[in-house]
């Protein structure tokens, strides 16, 4: 009699999972009959207070501030705990922290050169903040702070102002030679200068909206497919689609943080060496 009970014991988790999936499907089916399809893909980006339902003021604790605080806590946990031991043979946490440090260090060195390494701490901070808030936003029921243009615009405008001020402080009026391309024919230079000036001032716009738009679009697509899963017939298909898009989102989260950081390095290089 021991054998069958052992078999059922090993099958219990599969039964539980199957039962849960069946219950979810049944609820989805009932729900789809009563209320039909309901798409609210952008509702997940609403900023609301954690406690109560009052208006959002300057010092209200909202879901944005909560997840930003968790981002900072996560970075601090990784870097503080990772560098605590400083073992010759690193633990898992230490090797992740070292990898992140080495990755950004190499990027700054490759793009801006040796003299850009003075600004490495700022770029490392940017990368860690963006990559952590992107990945924390992938957790179910969490909130993606970088999906808000208000959040990314602060970072992009800070980079823009820092680079512009740095360029003028280091090069004086010579920074303006960034817009005057001396390798082009003389007749073309004023037109090129106009284009360069426009593209310079458009930088913070594209820099911030690229990150926010990518995050927002990915999460909205997941929500749209999740709404389709209310129809029982196509729900397996939509769950498979959500899984696939989620895997893509993991990639996108990292690549967008990487792109934001490397563009910061490119802009910094322009400020350090404005001559073409």
């Amino acid at each position, binding site marked *: 009699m021991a054998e069958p009970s052992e078999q059922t014991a090993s099958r219990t988790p599969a039964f539980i999972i199957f039962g849960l999936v069946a219950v979810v499907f049944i609820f989805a089916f009932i729900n789809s009959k009563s209320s039909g399809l309901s798409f609210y893909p952008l509702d997940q980006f609403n900023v609301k207070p954690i406690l109560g339902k009052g208006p959002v003021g300057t010092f209200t604790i909202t879901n944005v501030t909560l997840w930003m605080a968790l981002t900072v806590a996560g970075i601090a946990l990784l870097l503080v705990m990772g560098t605590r031991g400083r073992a010759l043979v690193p633990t898992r946490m230490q090797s992740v922290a070292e990898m992140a440090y080495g990755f950004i260090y190499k*990027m700054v060195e*490759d*793009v801006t050169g040796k003299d850009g390494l003075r600004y490495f701490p700022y770029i490392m901070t940017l990368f860690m903040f963006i990559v952590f808030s992107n990945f924390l936003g992938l957790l179910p029921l969490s909130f993606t702070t970088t999906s808000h243009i208000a959040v990314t615009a602060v970072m992009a405008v800070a980079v823009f102002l820092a680079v512009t001020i740095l360029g003028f402080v280091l090069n004086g009026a010579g920074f303006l030679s960034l817009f005057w391309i001396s390798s082009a024919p003389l007749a073309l230079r004023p037109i090129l200068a106009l284009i360069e000036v426009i593209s310079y001032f*458009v930088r913070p*716009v*594209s820099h911030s*909206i*690229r990150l926010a*738009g990518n995050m927002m679009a990915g999460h909205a697509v997941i929500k749209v497919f999740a709404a389709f899963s209310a129809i029982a017939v196509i729900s397996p298909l939509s769950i498979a689609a959500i899984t696939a898009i989620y895997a893509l989102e993991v990639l996108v989260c990292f*690549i967008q943080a*990487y*792109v934001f950081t*490397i*563009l910061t390095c*490119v802009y910094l290089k322009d400020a350090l060496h404005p001559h073409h």
Partner: protein
Amino acid sequence: MEGDVVQMGAYIGAGLACTGMGGAALGVGQVVGNFLSGALRNPSAAGGQTATMFIGIAFAEALGIFSFLVALLLMFAV
């Protein structure tokens, strides 16, 4: 009535603005495709140029982002 027509125009315009993102898609595909065809001919030089590829992608994508921005402005700001 007039406001409805304006809103309809704004929504149609937002949809049309989104076609600009197709151009960004073509541009990004061009950048990555050419990078790959170059990288497969000379794989030893490919590693050093990955960052350049991402910068190229970012610049190609920026123009699609402007059309996305126009769509957002038409949807929520007009």
